[in-house]
């Protein structure tokens, strides 16, 4: 992604975290990958940093504060609402999808079970955010 800013991954499953890290490495995405284990953790990290991430990859099903709750909190925050959020989830549930788009999500991706398919998915996401103008320089 073009500006080299970090990407924040909010994900509680360690293997899923590893999957994204590995895919980034494989795709030669150089942006640093920060991880938060749940919504609350993510909000804390975002509150304590000067450099906001250029994108947030967000799982839906997490303990303490789930993805949808975090998404709503982000969109209500003047400072954070500009960050594009891409849901990265297992949930095919229509309600989750509708709720996400109702909260201005930038994308909704279903995690494939197969790792190589996951890499392809990440390739597309990374390519899109390389072509797309970032919200802030």
């Amino acid at each position, binding site marked *: 992604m073009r500006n080299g800013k970090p990407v924040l991954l909010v994900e509680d*499953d360690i*293997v*899923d975290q*590893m*999957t994204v890290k*590995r895919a980034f490495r494989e795709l030669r995405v150089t942006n640093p990958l920060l991880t938060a284990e749940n919504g609350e953790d993510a909000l804390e990290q975002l509150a304590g940093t000067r450099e906001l991430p250029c994108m947030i990859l967000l799982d839906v*099903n997490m303990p303490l504060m789930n993805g949808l709750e975090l998404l709503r909190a982000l969109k209500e925050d003047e400072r954070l609402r500009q960050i594009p959020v891409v849901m990265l989830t*297992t*949930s*095919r*549930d229509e309600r989750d999808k509708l709720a996400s788009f109702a909260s201005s999500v930038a994308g909704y991706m279903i*995690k*494939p*079970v*197969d*790792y*190589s398919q*996951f890499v392809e998915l990440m390739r597309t996401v990374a390519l899109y955010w390389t072509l797309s103008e970032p919200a802030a320089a």
Partner: protein
Amino acid sequence: MAGVGSWEWEVKTGAMRWSEQMCCMLGVATSAKASFEALLAFAHPDDQARVRAQLEQSVAENRAYSAEFRIVRGDGAEISVSAYPELMEDTGGHQRRVTGVLHDVTGRAEAAERLRVSEERFQMVARATRDVIWDVQLRGAVNDVADDPRRIGDLVGGAEFWISDSIRGFGYDVAGVTLAWLLERVHPSDREVVVYAIHHALAGTGTSWSVEYRFRRADGSYADIFDRAHMLRDAKGAVVGAIGSMQDVSARKEAERRQESSLKELEEANRQLAEFAYVVSHDLKAPLRGISSLADWIVRDSGDKLDDEGREQLGLLLVRVRRMNDLVEGILQYSRVGRANEERSSVALAELVPQIVDLIGAPSHVTVEIEGALPVVVAPRTQIAQVFQNLVGNAVKFCDPSCGRVVVACSERGDRWQFEIKDNGRGIEERHFERIFQLFQTLGSRDKNGSTGIGLTIVKKIVESTGGRVWLESRIGEGSRFFFTLPKTSENP
């Protein structure tokens, strides 16, 4: 045939003449000699004195009269007649002649008797049935009222009304029941419908009429009534009355309401299932994805360090992960579709069941045996797979912990196949036989045995929707035998 006979009697001469029909009525030959005494002789012995006295009195008082009496015919048969003698004066003023007509009224008396019997029978019926029988005779200008439903009250007020004893069933006394009283006890919300139905009957031409309404019992509760009537119309087609019956259909209505609420409960259960499946899809698929990724990476990163056996095993692992994922998706789909619309196809169980056994991957101390041949059934494939997966899976999970033995078998039972999955586990108490098929019901701790309480519920749903039945036989210490049937034909149940 007998009907009407006439006769003529000259009081002075005593001469008597009677018609041929008279002879017929009396049952004597036309040649028989007619005389007053002869005629009187035909009267029933018990009636003779009365008849003679009445006739003599009328001659003496010079006035017409009528009498009814019995006649014993020449052939011995008894008939009832009515006589209408007329006295005629000659010009001299006192020479008299009596002419008379004799009516055979035997039929009339019989009809009256028949009516009495019929009335008695009707009373019996009215008493025997729990329906409330009613009868209304209208008076007044029906046509006027028919034009204006609001004036039905006028009509009702002037009606002659009868109701059967069965009204007591609603806690009321028969005395004082009028049509207006009855209408007052119709539920206020239904009164308009009833009035409209009456109006409709008055304005229309039909003879059958029915309406449903709630009727207030004496204790204030309401009964559901199905009221059916036959309209009586005059020659011009105007309603002159009606006879009907109020049938108490409360029990049926209540059953309908109960059925409706069961349906709601069923829908609620389906909704719960869908909800559960949604959660399960997350909780099962996330670790599956992890296993899949890790296995994939081991092959990629350390493939060269593994021998052929190791690589093959990892390959098998990945295949199972994918299959498992499919099953989870299947559960999801099943719960989403709810009514299970998966198409039926020929399923060779001899191939499918070993695959499922393989997928379950029983631990080494458990043997799973397929006894005899398994048939080809026409059924929804993934659903049938799920049935075996759940039943065999349970058997493997709950069989003897040191030396488990699971047997899958099939036998032919008329137009259906009967399958059996037998384990040598600790068994299930009979009081739990129903519970275990209920949604989210488990017999042990979920943490301990990893049960979700959904497996057997799905089995039951699938088997029953396919037209089969599922049940179990079990005793503590003797293991469990789960049975289910599937129809041999592909026809819908």
